[in-house]
């Protein structure tokens, strides 16, 4: 199965040609890391995969993006359904200013689930999956903002899991966290990949190397190299990749 | 829309209900308010409301049939009358009281004892603007100091009346005087200004006697100081004016309205002085009552 397949994707912001002919197929139940210098289009491409760019002024796209074999930019596609299936976790932990419980339950309520029992079940399960349950089970009604940064980020992941996505996109999910929280998130990602397809943007090459199975290196809007992480970091094929990962650049 | 209901069509003793809408002059307001207040003890179920849109604002509503009675500090004007006609509104004008205008100066002003009407005209006429500015231009033996004039706003009925009486034409006066719609403000202004000279309603003087010096008017027949008596008997002229209420014919036919108006005229002698105005003579009130009664009769 190919959960994500992009064909010849070009993205423009106004006149700014941000992604150029990106072709990529992402494997199921694996962690794929996007790396590359700032502004190379990593986030843009990630957000193209669940149409989070739709609201940005001047956004235009050419080419095709298939999720589970279906073109997601087709008219009839319901973007809300798509985003439910393709969850997203952001750079800075952004819990809703509500209780911990409400944060996780939000997605369910939004999608019309209002059976209390069902919601309780799902909240607990998601929090367990996100390895947060033991830390918060006694204070589910406390405000989410009272959690530490790392816990907040795991809460955001739990929140995403609650709506049962099959793909999770993460845009630098640990860059605002300290090393210990980062380690926890990385561990979590490694665990989650058994059930989910995970795509992660990271500025931290060590992180990419640690947690990902495959790495995609973007440069100036182009997908320069894409392959197994272990190969990429021991023997990249492209000179540009090598220069980037060894810190020789520009 | 009038909601007046007639539960009983005959008998003075009958409990009346309904609503009477009154608007108009702020000058007349205290009188009408007093009447309405007293009327309530008689007919507690009649809702009398009184607004203060000013005589002009009141007539505008009156001319559209939005109100039953209009308080007026001057007689209706041609345009306003035309508007009434256009809307098929007939009305009766009822004089309800007198309002005296007083001319005052600062307490420290030792030189002014009285003004002749001519002198007032000389001070206030439009031509005086920027020419007549010092006391000694009025009477040579007065000091050669600049005087400061205070008066009601040019949009007020009081101002209209004063200019008409003194200068001869309503709204015709010099422009370089300080105006305020609020007579208390004028009191304040004059009492704080040694060279101040002001005119405003008698009631305001009555309340501030200790702060101001009243100036008598010589209208050719000797100096007359304004007082209830001199206003009432007409010797304090030309600076006293009648104030009115106007009633529409439609309203007058409603028992609560006619009952109210009659109550107004019959209680005015006691209530008018109570709120600082000068009542008409009893005869005059009788005449006004008669005028209203005959108006109420179907023609």
């Amino acid at each position: 199965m190919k959960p994500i397949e992009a064909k010849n994707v070009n993205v423009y912001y106004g006149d700014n040609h941000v992604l150029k002919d990106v072709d990529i197929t992402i494997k199921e139940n694996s962690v794929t890391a996007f790396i590359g210098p700032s502004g190379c289009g990593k986030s843009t491409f990630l957000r193209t995969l669940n149409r989070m760019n739709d609201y940005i002024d001047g956004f235009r796209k050419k080419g095709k993006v298939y999720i589970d074999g279906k073109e997601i930019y087709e008219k009839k596609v319901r973007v809300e359904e798509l985003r439910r299936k393709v969850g997203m976790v952001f750079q800075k932990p952004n819990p809703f200013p509500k209780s911990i419980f409400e944060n996780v339950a939000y997605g369910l309520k939004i999608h019309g689930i209002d059976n209390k029992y069902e919601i309780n079940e799902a909240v607990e399960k998601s929090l367990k999956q996100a390895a947060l349950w033991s830390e918060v089970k006694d204070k589910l009604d406390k405000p989410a903002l009272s959690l530490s940064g790392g816990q907040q980020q795991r809460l955001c992941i739990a929140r995403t899991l609650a709506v049962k996505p099959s793909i999770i996109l993460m845009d630098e999910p640990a860059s605002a966290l300290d090393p210990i929280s980062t380690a926890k998130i990385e561990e979590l990602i490694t665990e989650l990949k058994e059930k989910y397809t995970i795509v992660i943007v990271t500025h931290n090459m060590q992180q990419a190397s640690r947690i990902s199975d495959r790495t995609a290196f973007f440069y100036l809007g182009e997908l320069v190299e894409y392959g197994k992480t272990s190969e990429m970091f021991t023997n990249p094929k492209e000179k540009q990749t090598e220069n980037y990962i060894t810190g020789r650049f520009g | 829309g009038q909601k007046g209901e007639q539960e009983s069509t005959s008998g003075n003793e009958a409990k009346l209900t309904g609503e009477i809408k009154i608007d108009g002059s702020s000058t007349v307001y205290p009188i009408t308010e007093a009447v309405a207040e007293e009327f309530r003890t008689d007919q507690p179920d009649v809702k009398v409301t009184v607004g203060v849109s000013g005589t002009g604002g009141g007539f505008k509503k009156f001319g559209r049939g939005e109100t039953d009675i209009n308080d007026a500090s001057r007689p209706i004007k041609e345009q306003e009358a035309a508007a009434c006609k256009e809307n098929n509104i007939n009305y009766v004008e009822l004089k309800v009281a007198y309002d005296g205008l007083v001319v005052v100066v600062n307490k420290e002003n030792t030189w002014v004892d009285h003004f002749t009407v001519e002198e007032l005209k000389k001070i206030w006429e439009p031509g005086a603007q920027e020419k007549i500015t010092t006391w000694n231009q009025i009477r040579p033996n007065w000091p050669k100091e600049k005087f400061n004039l205070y008066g009601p706003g040019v949009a007020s009925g009081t101002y209209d009346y004063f200019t008409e009486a003194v200068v001869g034409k309503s709204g015709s006066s010099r422009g370089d005087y300080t105006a305020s719609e609020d007579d208390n403000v004028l009191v304040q202004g004059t009492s704080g200004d040694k060279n101040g000279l002001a005119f405003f309603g008698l009631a305001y003087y009555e309340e501030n006697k200790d702060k101001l010096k009243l100036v008598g008017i010589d209208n050719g027949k000797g100096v007359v100081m304004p007082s209830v008596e001199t206003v009432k008997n007409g010797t304090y002229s030309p600076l006293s004016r009648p104030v009115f209420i106007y009633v529409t014919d439609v309203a007058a036919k409603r028992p609560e309205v006619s009952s109210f108006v009659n109550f107004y005229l019959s209680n005015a002698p006691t209530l008018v002085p109570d709120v600082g105005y000068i009542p008409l003579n009893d005869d005059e009130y009788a005449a006004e009552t008669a005028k209203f009664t005959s108006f109420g009769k179907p023609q």
Partner: protein
Amino acid sequence: MSNVKRNRNIDTAFKYVGIFFTLFGIAVLFVFIINILIDGLTRINWEFLTNLPSRRASKAGILTAWTGTAWILALTALIAIPIGVAAGIYLQEYGRKNRIARIIELNIANLAGVPSIIYGLLGLEIFVRLMNLGGSLLAGALTLSLLILPVIIVATREALKAVPNSLREASYGMGATKWQTVWHQVLPAASGGILTGIILALSRAVGETAPLIVIGALAYVPFVADSPLDEFTVLPIQIFNWVSRPQEEFLVNGAAAIIILLLITFVMNGIAVYLRNKWQKKISW
């Protein structure tokens, strides 16, 4: 080094200037309040609150005035809040950044600067005449609603602007629609700011006199209104009326009524301050 010393002296000097002016502001406030209290406090008692207007100052009360104010406040809130907040939401969350949105924005800024008396004239033409509401509570509330609408819209927009975009993205990312996002996340997060704005706007409405006189609010109303179509008076009109009377006792009444009006304003401002503090404390992104 003398330079450092000089800078330090300036620093200290400014500190005292700052304290002086701050205290000056407070002092002015106290002068007002004390002045008013001295004039009016003796007049305030139960009867004053429950009596109908009267020609006798000592018997006159403000029952109809404060109930009118309460009515107006409630109706204005009912009308202005949904419309103002909705318009704010539209402009901030939905409106694309195009010319029309800019025109609306500029337009709102302009409306905020229009003198209230002109709103009175507008209300007179539209609500009293055109819609045939007469000088009713509803007409007054509608007029005041238009008057404070710009304030509410601007406050709403500012509060919405302060909600970080990450919150919206989080919601969209979970498959929420735009309205779900606005309703469940953005609005609650901005509610403190919006409420503050609303209350400040309403407390402005409470003090307005001129536009209500223009649309025909009355001075003497001997009954408490029981429907929005009834005629009414409000505290500021009562005050305005009393302070322009010649009798000293009415001036005292006026002062007493001002105390009541100030009290209402204080309470509302207090609520606003409370909400703002609570909001600032709670939301620290």
